[in-house]
């Protein structure tokens, strides 16, 4: 019964999006929207606004992916060497 109800048509803004497998793709719109809002208050001249927004978006994505890779290496390789599981 529960599974049948959960497969009813999704209602946008009421029910969650079915993104359980592809949630990481949301990194791009999140970084882009943060950059749009942040650069809107930071720039004094709008002539290079979108270029700055794209640069900040790329910086954020690279930084977050870098932190993700560093955390993966720490958890998978460094910590098992420091504290081997008995």
């Amino acid at each position, binding site marked *: 019964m529960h599974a049948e109800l959960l497969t009813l048509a999704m209602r946008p803004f009421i*029910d969650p999006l079915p993104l359980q497998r592809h949630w990481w793709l949301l990194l791009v719109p999140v970084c882009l*929207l943060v950059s749009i809002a*942040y650069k809107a208050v930071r720039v004094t001249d709008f002539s290079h606004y979108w270029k700055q927004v794209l640069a900040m978006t790329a910086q954020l994505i690279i930084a977050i992916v870098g932190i993700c890779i560093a955390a993966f290496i720490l958890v998978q390789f460094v910590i098992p060497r420091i504290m081997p599981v008995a």
Partner: protein
Amino acid sequence: MSTSPTSSTGFDPLAGVAAIVFPGAGHLARREPRRAALIAVGILGLFFGGILVGGIDVIDSREDRVWFIGQAIVGPLAFGVDYVHQHHFKVLDPQGRALRSAFPDEARNPVDGTPIAIKKDQNGTPTATYNDHGKPVTLSPASPPNIKSLSKVNELGTLMSTLAGMLNLIIIIDAMFPTLRRDNA
């Protein structure tokens, strides 16, 4: 790289209040329509993007109070969405008389907000029957008022709408104290 302040100086309380009321309105009050429009796109995109990803469940002042403190900085909009969530989607538990999210096999009684069990009729359609001042009314097909988001989808939806509030704090300060903007953006 220059770090000199812009020529616009001082304290602008009207713009500050407008920025609190609606994202971007503070800069609109300061006659910066382009900046205001871009701010509104960014903040509202994050806020409603979060609700789109995680459902209305991500704005919840009762169950996720700490996150709601961040979301509340978006302004009255956040309180409005929370009000709609609490009063039009949550059910009134008949035992504890407290608001809670409906279970997956419960619909919401539109008269008093209590949960009503969803059952399948002879055709297999989920239905729920409630009493409207003595008159039985059947919802068909019946469904829960909303589905709670779980795991990463809930985390990201909540994070997006909270980021909107935290960024809006920067924007409120920028509207109220325009001297803080530097040329080295």
